[in-house]
């Protein structure tokens, strides 16, 4: 396939993906807004119980939330504002959502990024050791370690990292690592078990060459797809880790927003988390497509 054709088809695929992403993100935001609106006690505001507030102040508080009663009008207003860069004001924290997100994203990006990197390094080194070492002990060690971490709730790992004074990204790495290990180990074992790899070994090809020329082309695309999925897993893990380790990131913000039923913040977070997850998955998908087409 010529490069021009590949580029054209990739652009087409990308455009289709982006349309689907936009639709899903908008639907996700609407779903979140509807859920919050339908939640029991949505109309009540604890501040109204403050005896020092006059009836005018209570009325003003009620009026400030009046625009949120109709979920569709709220969502339309939100979208209109979002286009102009105004994401609303958080009820619970009393700050513009845009400021909150700008302050908190770097923390999450750092914690999730380092955590993911560590998880991939740990999982791949164990998976390669198990597949290349070809000794039952390596495999048992990998399965036992990943199995043990798979059985521990993410929040417990976060608590343990607090008790042991370990960094938050380590907890994220240990939450994500077993999922990567199990999948990548299966992929590598399957690839190394292919007859042409046995033949290549018999002909004396070096392990590095076998890996680069025969194993990675088989297992690589699925590993890239897995990389997209692990972003979503790590983002989910960031909620208990940041909430319990006291890290002021998006995960902690999501937890606070959920507890205080902060509609503007929840809608923005849902939109943002959906967007990041879908972009990561679609990015991986497009990369896999390009690799597959490039080869053919």
């Amino acid at each position: 396939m010529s490069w021009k054709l590949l580029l054209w088809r990739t652009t087409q695929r990308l455009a289709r993906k982006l349309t689907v992403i936009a639709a899903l993100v908008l639907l996700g935001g609407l779903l979140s807004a509807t859920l919050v609106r339908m939640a029991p006690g949505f109309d009540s505001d604890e501040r109204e119980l403050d005896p020092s507030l006059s009836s005018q102040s209570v009325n003003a508080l009620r009026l400030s939330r009046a625009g949120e009663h109709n979920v569709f009008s709220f969502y339309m207003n939100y979208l209109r504002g979002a286009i102009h860069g105004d994401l609303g004001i958080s009820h619970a924290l009393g700050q513009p959502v845009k400021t909150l997100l700008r302050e908190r994203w770097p923390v999450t990006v750092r914690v999730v990024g380092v955590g993911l990197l560590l998880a991939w390094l740990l999982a791949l080194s164990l998976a390669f050791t198990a597949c290349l070492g070809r000794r039952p002990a390596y495999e048992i060690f990998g399965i036992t370690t990943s199995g043990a971490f798979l059985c521990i709730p993410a929040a417990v790992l976060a608590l343990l990292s607090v008790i042991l004074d370990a960094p938050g990204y380590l907890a994220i790495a240990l939450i994500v690592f077993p999922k990567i290990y199990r999948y990548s180990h299966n992929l590598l074992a399957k690839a190394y078990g292919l007859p042409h790899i046995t033949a290549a070994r018999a002909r004396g090809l070096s392990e590095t060459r076998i890996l680069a020329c025969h194993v990675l082309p088989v297992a690589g695309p699925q590993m890239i797809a897995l990389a997209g999925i692990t972003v979503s897993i790590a983002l989910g893990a960031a909620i208990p880790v940041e909430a319990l380790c006291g890290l002021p990131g998006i995960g902690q913000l999501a937890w606070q927003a959920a507890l205080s039923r902060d509609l503007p913040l929840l809608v923005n977070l849902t939109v943002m988390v959906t967007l990041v997850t879908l972009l990561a998955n679609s990015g991986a998908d497009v990369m896999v497509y390009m690799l597959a087409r490039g080869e053919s």
Partner: protein
Amino acid sequence: MNQVRKLACVVVLVVCAMSAAANWLAPAGYAKQFREAPDAPPSRQHLLGTDEVGRDRFARVLYGTRISLLLAPAAALVSTALAALVGGLAGYLGGFWLRLARAFTDLFLSLPWLFLLITVRALLPLNVSPLTSVLITFLILGLLGWAASARVLSTSADALRDSDFILQARASGLHGPRLFLIHVLPNLKPVLYAQFWISIPVFILSEANLGILGLGVAEPLPSWGSLLRELEGLISFREEPWRLVPLLLLIVVMTSFQLLLSNEEVTA
């Protein structure tokens, strides 16, 4: 069944039996306070000591295990039934319905599971009776956990739609719900069983996560989530290692569930 799976099965059965016999093994109950002995170390009277308000920890572990092990399968049943309805029907109907169901499952799957769970749980009343909190927690797990299973089931049902026996049944005049109930659904049984068993450990872990974050089962009812929350006050493992018993029990049960699920089931 190999030896390891047999052992895992025995472990799960023993834990289930012990939690079912909680009334006899720990007659004091999960809520009774021994006010003279708060934070007591293990003794003959209190095998795992007492918590900070003087409740017997052994009793709480047994009752908490009972709640988690009873309700996680119930939630798995709800989610599998929903998945069969949405995924199975969409796969069977195909075309527009299949695309719609896939878009809907994509939407659910695009949100991290814990984020979705925390958001929806927090939107429901938190100051409710303990029993209501148990029902809310596990009902949410069941109602939100169907998407991944639905995706698998829609693919399986889609593959079945053009199979020979379905075409023959159609040619014989069988259509609509009868065809779905008589021919499609029974053939989805292996996938449904697999999805049901896979969901149980996922829901046990999810409840534990919610409990630790303060959004799970309300006090004084114990669950693995609320028991693990006690770890928050732990300063060092050496000082009070018995406080780790709920975590160890959870790991043992979860490992057993993992061993019980064969590779084929996980793949399905």
